[in-house]
């Protein structure tokens, strides 16, 4: 479904990513971890066709990034939405359908249904008419997830999807994501600074720091020497916390 082959990216002549290769199978959840400035967001943006690659090849649904006939749902890393932004939750979710709408074309019945379905899936149907800027951080994140689901029910790309959320909201978000994966068979690729949470949720992890350091199942990756090398520090995982996350994700 997603394939990176020896991908390198430079910005202003400076290498940001070098020789990245991996592939992601349908229905899997891939977590991308690495220290600050490792190139995690760049990797996602390259996959979406938002930054050019300097070498290698990326395929998404067998096509070049941004050219896939099937859309990709995207939740970028972002701060809270301005309280005065003049759109309802429904307006924001409808933006996920814009690719299929022509100029001046009103939303069709199928678009309205897709929006209603996506809102129901993330438990936001009761908030559809509320201004987006007045929702809590967790609700805004769920609305953006509904927008991404409107764009694609096959592949979701999430960049720091739980940043700024407190622990209960973060856990609720991951629980929702897990139920969507089960229900729709979604493929997910997510970047997070929260190694422990992502290790508990993902089927596979890759750790990058400009180059690929390690790729494997979360248990192998978090205990690998390559992870410590990428972060250039030692980890002292609190056994209880990691076990707790593993228990939450244990039924996957």
């Amino acid at each position, binding site marked *: 479904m997603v394939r990176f082959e020896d991908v390198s990216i430079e910005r202003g002549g400076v290498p940001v990513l070098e020789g990245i290769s991996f592939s992601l199978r349908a229905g899997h959840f891939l977590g991308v971890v690495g220290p600050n400035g490792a190139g995690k967001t760049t990797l996602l*943006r390259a996959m*979406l*066709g*938002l930054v050019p690659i300097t070498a290698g090849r990326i395929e998404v649904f067998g096509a070049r990034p*941004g050219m896939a006939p099937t*859309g*990709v749902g*995207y939740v*970028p890393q*972002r701060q809270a*939405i301005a309280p*005065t*932004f*003049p*759109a*309802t939750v429904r*307006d*924001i979710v409808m*933006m*996920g359908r*814009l*690719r299929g*709408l022509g*100029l*001046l074309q009103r939303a069709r019945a199928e678009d309205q249904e897709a929006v209603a379905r996506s809102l129901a899936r993330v438990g936001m149907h009761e908030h559809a008419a509320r*201004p987006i800027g007045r929702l809590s951080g967790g609700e805004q994140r769920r609305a953006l997830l509904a*927008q991404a689901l409107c*764009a694609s029910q096959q592949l979701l790309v999430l960049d720091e999807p739980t940043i700024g959320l407190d622990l209960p909201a973060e856990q609720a978000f991951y629980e929702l994501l897990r139920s969507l994966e089960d229900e729709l068979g979604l493929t997910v690729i997510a970047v997070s600074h929260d190694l422990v949470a992502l290790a508990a949720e993902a089927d596979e992890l890759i750790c990058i720091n400009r180059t690929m350091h390690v790729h494997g199942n979360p248990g192998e990756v978090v205990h690998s020497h390559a992870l410590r090398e990428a972060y250039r520090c030692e980890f002292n995982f609190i056994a209880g916390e990691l076990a707790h996350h593993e228990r939450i994700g244990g039924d996957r």
Partner: protein
Amino acid sequence: MLEFAFMQRAFAAAVVIGVVCGALGFFVVLRRLAFIGVGISHSAIGGVAIGIVAGLPPLATGAVFAVAVALGIAAVRRRGALSEDAVIGVFFSGSMALGVVLFSLQRGYQQDLFGYLFGDVLAISNGELLTLAAGGAAAVTALALAFRPLFFIAFDEEIAQAYGQPVGALNTALLVLLAVTIVIGVRLVGAILIEALLVIPAASAALWAAGWRAQLAISTGLGAASGVLGLALAFALDLAAGASIVLVSTGLFFVSLALRGRGPT
């Protein structure tokens, strides 16, 4: 006052420009383009002066020049070496200085210059009114056609781009639209004050309504109302028309602020 043909033309122009500025002002306020609008409007003076010196239609040369300045600001901004306000400051002051120098080469330049700086809507001709109406209709049509993607970009450029929207082209189109609207409005309130009609009605509307549909409707309504009431006030009290329109618009903003200072509920 409506028995005078010049007042009929002035009222018609005020309504057209008020509606167009109110509609485009929605995006000017939402995307924080107020300063770039000031830069473009002052730059238009340079283009108008080129037209007068070269014997070409001043509004047409003003429009071409303002569009060129808007695209120049966008191009330098994209390179990212300078902050946006610095880029605008350079274009704005350089173009305006060029305009003043060119005007000074003309005999009796002060009257012409003042007309373009502060507006001269009472002197508007039938031909100019038709040009304004055609330009206004084109601007509103373009805005309506591109409204959904422009609104999406205002929400989040990166998501919009990831979902296949031509973000660069649409941002450029918005700047071109802004430049054209500014030049259309120069005859009403002048290059110095046109920015007020792009910002104040939309800012007032944001105090009354939380949704984009209502904000657009209120903004265009307030833009047109400011034009009509300002002109009536100017006629009744023998005041400068352009400045009166802006003062009425400002007054409506402060009424909105007093009544709805906490914003829409």
